[in-house]
């Protein structure tokens, strides 16, 4: 006569056994839990870490910075400029973190006590600093409000500040540019700035108002979210520009070589981290396998006894398999909790927070993986337990 299904009883027995033998399984549970937590952190925080790393690496090469400009070709061609709707459309492209428009003019001058100092100047918007990952070495940069209010403020390159003000602190002092007064808000410097230490920066709107003979905005800087976005964005720019304005002089500059190097380095780092995570999980799997083998060995009497009182091979197989799965599932749940904790800490440190949906998707994936891991690692020990001869099992005890 066919027997009624007993799966839920088997499940209950298995969970009970895992609880009873929890000390034996502690190491395995921790290994799988740490692997799972690592997986969750990599997936949830990976984008933010990459973004952060990307920004740091950019100080060395600007691999995610794209320069687009309208090059008139030769001096008799009509000067072209980026239209505001073109810039807005570029800002809306996916994979773009910030866009900055600039105007520039070489050979302007500032009067100082000893005479006049010649330099180049850049009229920039409030995003310019973020796009270029610049930080002030003194004071602060002008912002979007300064730009919209056309304030007469400026930021000086450190070298230019030295030439104009000597050793005195320039912040808050007045500086003359093309016979107009500007208040110095901050000083730009550092290794990543390059020859911009000799430049003066003023809000683009102010420049257009007060600097005579200034060309229209012909150059924009585009900062991509990560290096993975650079190619997509670079490919999309011509389409966007041509959809919004007529021009035949668009030029795009990408530092492909630096980008390739950075991507290669990041790929290796990523590979290493994934490898470490997978290795931890596989080790956890071996731990489960080993733990279950030891369990089967030490619980021969129980196996024999259960068979003697009527358990079929498949009942024993199911019990030990479910025990292994319970073990890995519990580990993955614990890993989820640890992963959440690590994610919270990471979010605090990186000052960015991944979406909760991503976290729950990761936990779901980890739980599914743990089921497969438990079943895979527990299969052989469970088969051994189920095929054990009753008498051998009891006598062995």
């Amino acid at each position, binding site marked *: 006569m066919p*027997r*009624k*299904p*007993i799966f839920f*009883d*088997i499940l209950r*027995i298995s969970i*009970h*056994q895992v609880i*009873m*033998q929890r000390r034996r399984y502690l190491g395995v549970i921790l290994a799988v839990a740490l692997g799972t937590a690592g997986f969750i952190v990599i997936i949830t925080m990976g984008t933010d870490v990459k973004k952060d790393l990307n920004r740091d690496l950019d100080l060395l090469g600007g691999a995610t910075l794209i320069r687009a400009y309208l090059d008139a070709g030769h001096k008799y061609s009509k000067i072209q400029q980026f239209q505001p709707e073109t810039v807005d459309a570029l800002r809306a492209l996916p994979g773009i973190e910030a866009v900055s428009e600039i105007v520039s003019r070489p050979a302007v001058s500032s009067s100082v006590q000893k005479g006049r100092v010649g330099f180049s100047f850049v009229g920039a918007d409030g995003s310019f600093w973020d796009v270029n990952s610049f930080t002030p070495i003194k004071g602060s940069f002008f912002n979007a409000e300064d730009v919209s209010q056309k304030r007469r403020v400026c930021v000086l390159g450190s070298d230019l500040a030295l030439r104009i003000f000597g050793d005195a602190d320039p912040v808050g002092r007045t500086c003359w540019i093309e016979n107009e007064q500007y208040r110095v808000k901050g000083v730009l410097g550092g290794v990543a700035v390059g020859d911009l230490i000799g430049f003066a920066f003023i809000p683009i709107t102010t420049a257009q108002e007060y600097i005579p003979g200034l060309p229209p905005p012909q150059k924009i800087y585009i900062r991509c979210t990560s290096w993975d976005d650079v190619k997509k964005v670079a490919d999309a720019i011509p389409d966007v520009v041509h959809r919004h304005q007529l021009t035949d002089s668009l030029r795009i500059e990408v530092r492909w070589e630096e980008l390739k190097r950075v991507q290669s380095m990041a790929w290796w780092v990523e590979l290493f981290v994934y490898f470490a995570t997978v290795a931890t999980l596989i080790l956890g799997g071996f731990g489960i396998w080993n733990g279950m083998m030891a369990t089967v060995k030490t619980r021969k*009497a*129980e196996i*024999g*006894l*259960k*068979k*003697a*009182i*009527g*358990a*079929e*091979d498949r*009942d024993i197989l199911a019990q030990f398999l479910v025990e292994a799965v319970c073990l890995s599932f519990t580990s993955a749940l614990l890993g989820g909790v640890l992963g959440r904790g690590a994610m919270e800490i990471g979010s605090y440190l990186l000052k960015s927070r991944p979406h909760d949906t991503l976290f729950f998707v990761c936990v779901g994936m980890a739980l599914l993986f743990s089921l497969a891991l438990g079943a895979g690692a527990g299969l052989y020990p469970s088969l051994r337990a189920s095929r054990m*001869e*009753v*008498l051998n099992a*009891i006598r062995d*005890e």
Partner: protein
Amino acid sequence: MNSNSSYGYENISLIQVEGLTHTYDNGTGPVVVLQGVRLGIQMGEMVAIMGPSGSGKSTLLSILGLLMIPTAGSYTVLGRDVLKFDRSSQASFRRTYAGFVFQRCNLVDTCSVYENLEFPLIYAGVKRSERPAKIQDALARVNMTHRLHHRANQLSGGEQQRVAIARALVNSPLIVLADEPTGQLDRMHGELVMDHFEQILSDKDKAVLIVTHDPHVASRCTRVCLLEDGVLKPN
């Protein structure tokens, strides 16, 4: 189906063994453990198998419980040739017709008395709602209801053996097979266990087969058989 006195098999042979032979190879040649054993057990009987160590007592008991298959011979239970059973049917036989009491390793230490008695019911597919009554009933027969929720390793040896008897009875088997059930107990607890076996026989449709060294245990059985060098002789 398994309610007391409902089998309707009284006075018919419950177990019939003919020409049972078992040999194994120990590497130097075949060793004969059982040789042409002939045994019949009726319902209501308590049969003791005695004999020196190594005479094949436990092997005979294991064969009767389908824990192992003999090399030759026939074995029928209620007229059915059980030696033709596959592994699944053997397990089904053990959970339906036979109840085992071993000398040692009778209970799962990490489980409670209730859980130990629940195992045979689970494997027999008994509904969860029906289990408590059956467990209480079986425990009441060995006066152990007060230990229902104690862990097996919290019980004394005698108590463990009584719980093992209760477990052997919980599915109302036709035959209880006991291998040295009093071997590790003192005289008083041994007597108590034998009292319980005698009580089992109050159900006329059951039988008990006990393998023992102890003449006192044998003296309380309805029949004693002597097994010497694999040959069974009526005492």
